[in-house]
């Protein structure tokens, strides 16, 4: 068992609270379908997961989760406006090629869009760069730069700025501390390790 996998599911509880009974949910970068399986069982949602890795799709099939093997952006185009109640990005926005384009498309397809992301501006990350001149290496960032997928980590401040400039409405947001468990009440851009946003079109 990957030690990171528990942490990986950190936003599930928050997301589940925002999901309504019987919602139509599209999970972009669904991984092994753990979130959708839980939502299907507990809240009787109609869930669809998208992932680019075949092994993840096989795991979804094993869980009885509908899964589509392919590119997130390409598949969004196949759905009509507001055809899902909620589109979820759980730790997948930083992996998108053109995050702005895909998020806009997700806001077209979903009535709500949930984005869960690691706050790259968390104080430990800043400190690591400040004192050592290198990016932090821990369970959140387990791989060295040369052995990990290309990704665009961003901070809470940057995401807020993005929402503001594109007119995306932030309906709700939740910050978690560095342990990704407790609520972070103060200075989230510095003190939050993880953030979850509930968005709608402006």
């Amino acid at each position, binding site marked *: 068992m990957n030690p990171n996998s528990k942490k990986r599911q950190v936003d599930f509880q928050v997301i589940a609270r925002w999901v309504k009974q019987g919602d139509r949910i599209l999970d972009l970068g669904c991984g092994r379908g753990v979130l959708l399986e839980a939502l299907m069982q507990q809240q009787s949602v109609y869930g669809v997961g998208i992932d680019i890795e075949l092994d993840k*799709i096989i*795991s979804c*099939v094993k869980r009885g989760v509908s899964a589509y093997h392919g590119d997130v952006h390409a598949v969004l185009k196949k759905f009509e406006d507001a055809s899902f109640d909620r589109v979820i990005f759980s730790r997948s926005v930083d992996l998108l090629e053109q995050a702005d384009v895909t998020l806009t498309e997700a806001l077209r397809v979903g009535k709500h869009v949930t984005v869960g992301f690691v706050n790259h501006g968390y104080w430990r990350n800043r400190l690591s760069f400040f004192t050592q001149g290198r990016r932090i290496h821990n369970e959140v960032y387990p791989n060295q730069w040369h052995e990990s997928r290309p990704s665009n980590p961003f901070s809470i401040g940057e995401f807020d700025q993005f929402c503001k400039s594109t007119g995306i409405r932030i309906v709700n947001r939740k910050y978690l501390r560095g342990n990704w468990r407790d609520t972070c009440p103060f200075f989230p851009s510095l003190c939050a390790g993880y953030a979850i946003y509930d968005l709608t079109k402006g």
Partner: protein
Amino acid sequence: MNDSEALVSTFEEGEVGIVAHSDFVSKVPFEFESGGVVPGLCLRYETYGHLNKDKSNAILICHALTGDHHCAGVYDMTERKQGWWNFMVGPGKPIDTKKYFVICSNVLGGCNGSTGPRSINPETGKPYNLDFPKLTVRDMVRAQALLIDSLGLDRLHAVIGGSMGGMQTLQWAIDFPERLGRYAALACCARHNAQAIAFNDTGRQAIMRDPAWKKGVYASDAPPAHGLAVARMMAHITYLSDAGMEARFGRKRRAEDSSREHFEVEFEVESYLRYQGQQFVSRFDANSYLYLTKALDRFDLHGSDGRLDEMLKAVQAPGLVVGFGSDWLYPPQANREIVEALLRLGKPASYAELALNAGHDSFLLRAPKLDALIRTFLDR
């Protein structure tokens, strides 16, 4: 270890061994979608494994254009060639005959024991030939449903098939939504594109322009062998891929022989295709080939108004569609669009794409991920 590693771990595998076929004979007139009628029909089929007490473990396998009911095992111990999906069907295999009762029948319109153009028309005492009614994929499926009825089965655990078998599978899910628990369609499409129709018609023309075809009225020992062989050779190319052919044949030549005429077999790939053509003539009926390819060309889940979503509304069971990256006959996009429509409709459906380089025929070759996918889908 993560769970995908567990999925591809090895299973203790056996063989179904020696098998024999059976014939389902119906004396009830069968009306085709086109309105044509045959006074009765026969479907040749094989079964593997055992039906459980509550009759809930039956899986129907639908074969491809030139396949037949013999998908696993051998007919006797001296036979070297096993059924066409032998790696998939057997004890411990992805379609596990220790768990499932597996049925595979030769399609209506086929030529390996089931009623088709070569069968004797009881009204004339002669082969139907071109008097055989116009055939559709839906006719094939409706005939299979009669066979399933005759076996006392209300419901199938699953229907599965590749290529033309995938089309039958989709038709099953549409026409008999409450009779199947799930379905898996591999290397398939909702309808032929212009390219697929073009290849099929060129094959049909090769047959129909062979003087031996005689408007479909040929003796069984004097078939339009040249036309049928050329049709097969060309079709066979569409089942492979550029990369696959290059890896297997490249420009390899047969043994150097200076006495060889200029246009005799020179390259390995020529030799392979000619052999495939000849082999095919010995096992397939030309008229049957015409009817089946035409049924494929006319298969269209988009319907006359071009709305795939409309046609798939009837589907209830969870589905799995598998596309293959190197398949240029029924390319990934043709497979994907089926699942996209199902998901728009709010149906449970999954799409997986395998990066194998064997082209359209990839579903006929063993691959660990394909094994894992099918096993997982059927067993859950």
